[in-house]
């Protein structure tokens, strides 16, 4: 006890520690870099999607930093894995905003996770830019001051495109739905019903299934018995492949028009030889004829990530392209705002007038009425062939 610190030196140490903590919690303006966060599924069945998003953001950041950064500071990306778990996603978002003081953060793959983060982003007044999750309610969240933007597909528009495709390509008259049993499935259930009602088309049945279901034969049998002549599928890679395998077991050859779940991973490997039967929606593809920007980005991608040996390793292009354009648009907003304060960046988003991006040339991409940069004209249909996502030629 005699070796213990004297009371005076104890007080000094404690004061010093408190001071250090207070200083380290100082606002973002005191930092030497501009930090952006990323909350996405970096492990599990959507790991490849998370990886694609990280790559798209990193490529864009490299370009921005090569030109001197934003507001004279270099840009830094801080990524966190949400493991497709909404609770973990919210925790990660909190940490990024409150500890890391990010100016804005990008959000990942799963709709349920993004939906959980939206209230926090609006309450913390930090822009949250979605780059994959398509749930309609993510951007259309009813907040008076909406801090959620998105460069990605929107379920209600995707569903219109799916219905149109089913009718045009397959002449479907009574499609059925096989949907994953979560918030994303529900978002699309609403969208598909609305789109079908608009075209005065009836639906055969709506069946739900769980991510860990091995055997989807019961649900598919009910759809077949209800007279479905085409199937709308909304699920991630692993459950989508179980649907395809179950259809094989039933020897039921029915057109499958899907949301982009299969794009998130190794669909060809998991679904087997029937994988090419699934036609799904994308916002971008690195295959086929590329614009000069597309060629340049692809080359930069291959240079930065030498593990890309074939086009099959570039999958999913959607993650890369959405994230790449989203980062550039965000950088434009921060530059326009001249500050890293959330409310100012939000206003600056609305002032972006034109940007020549990878997916398209954006003109006035964001407004308080519509915080989604992409719309149905930007969608395309694709399919998997031996691990590569190829565009379907109409």
């Amino acid at each position, binding site marked *: 006890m005699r070796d213990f610190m004297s009371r005076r030196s104890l007080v000094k140490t404690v004061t010093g520690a408190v001071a250090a903590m207070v200083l380290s919690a100082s606002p973002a303006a005191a930092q030497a870099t501009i930090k952006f966060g990323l909350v996405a599924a*970096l*492990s*599990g*069945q959507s*790991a*490849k999607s998370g990886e694609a998003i990280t790559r798209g953001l990193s490529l864009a950041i490299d370009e921005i930093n090569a030109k001197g950064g934003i507001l004279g500071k270099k840009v830094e990306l801080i990524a966190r894995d949400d493991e497709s778990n909404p609770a973990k996603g919210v925790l990660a978002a909190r940490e990024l905003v409150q500890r890391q003081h990010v100016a804005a953060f990008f959000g990942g793959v799963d709709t349920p996770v993004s939906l959980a983060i939206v209230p926090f982003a609006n309450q913390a007044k930090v822009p949250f830019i979605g780059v994959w999750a398509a749930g309609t309610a993510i951007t259309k969240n009813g907040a008076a001051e909406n801090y959620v933007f998105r460069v990605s597909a929107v379920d209600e528009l995707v569903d219109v495109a799916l219905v149109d495709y089913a009718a045009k390509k397959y002449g479907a008259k009574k499609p059925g739905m096989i949907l994953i*049993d979560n918030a994303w499935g529900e978002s699309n259930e609403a969208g598909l019903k609305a789109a079908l009602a608009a075209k005065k088309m009836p639906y055969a049945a709506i*069946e*739900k*299934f*769980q991510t*860990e*279901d*091995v*055997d989807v*034969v*019961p*649900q598919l*049998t009910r759809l077949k018995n209800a007279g479905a002549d085409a199937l709308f599928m909304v699920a991630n*890679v*692993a459950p989508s*492949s*179980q649907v395809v395998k179950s259809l*094989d*077991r*039933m*020897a039921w050859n029915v057109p499958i028009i899907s949301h982009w779940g299969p794009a998130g*991973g*190794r669909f060809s*490997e*998991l679904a*087997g030889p029937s994988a090419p039967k699934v036609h799904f929606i994308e916002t971008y593809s690195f295959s086929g004829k590329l614009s000069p920007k597309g060629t340049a980005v692809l080359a930069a991608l291959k240079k930065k990530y030498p593990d890309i040996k074939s086009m099959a390793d570039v999958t999913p292009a959607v993650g890369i392209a959405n994230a790449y354009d989203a980062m550039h648009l965000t950088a434009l907003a921060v530059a326009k705002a001249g500050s890293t304060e959330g409310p100012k960046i939000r206003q600056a988003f609305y002032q972006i007038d034109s940007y020549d991006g990878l997916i398209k040339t954006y003109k006035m991409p964001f407004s308080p009425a519509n915080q989604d940069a992409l719309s149905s004209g930007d969608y395309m249909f694709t399919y998997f062939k031996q691990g590569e996502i190829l565009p379907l030629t109409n």
Partner: protein
Amino acid sequence: MLFISAIVSGLSLGSMYGLIALGFHVTYVVSKTVNFSQGSAVMLGAVLGYTFAVTAGLPLPLAFALALILCGAFGLLVERVLVRPFAGRNSEAWLMATVAGGILLDNTVLFAFGKEPRNFPSALANAPLMLFGTGVYALQLVIPVVGIGIAMMLQLLFRRTRTGKQMLAVVQNSDAARLMGIDVQRMIAASYAASTIFAGLAGLLIAPLVSVQSDMGMVLGIKAFAVAVLGGIASGWGVMLAGLAYGLFEAMVTAFAGSVYTQIAGFSIVILALAVMPNGFLGRASVFKV
């Protein structure tokens, strides 16, 4: 058609629950302890099988054998590090230790194997056979045969062979067993190795039907434990019977009510069954000699 498909599904999944539950049974009858990292051992079998057969390209029988040997080694490790230090001192901490060991393994595999689910191809799960108007994979028919076969072999081992009887003697009175020249530690370690080999085998068998990933064993482990308790953990036949019954029940609920209700119904029925038969189907209340 839905009925037949549900029965086949139910029997194959159920026999896998039974096989994993046999692992719980075998360590319980020898040492009154249970290996709660069984679920992770299932995953280990599948992951090792994938690594040897697909990544390394070894012939399938060799890949299987190597995977099972390593699973057995995992069992020995669990017994030595997570169970023996506690059980020997009459502490129940092996419960938590084996749970933790399973989580540790899951996360180690996550780093080593990768974050994505992979496909384990099998000649028995390629083209479906048409059976009574519904398609089944040959593998789904092989699985129950293997599961029940192993349960039978285990019963023969315990009833008819000397080693088996020695293993049973250990738990009844370990001091007397020692005095009779039975190597108590060796028997307990062997039972753990056996439990993880069963789990690994189950993993290898179901891998082609699902996909191989680091968290594939968790729910299976929990269900298998429920099955083990349901069947009477002290009875090998009870455990297998409970597995088949549970698997069939799950399949019927999924087929006729929808998979949303499967977990609720499944676990509810376990609670109900235990309320009616507290010792499980074929279990007996333990008799303590004073």
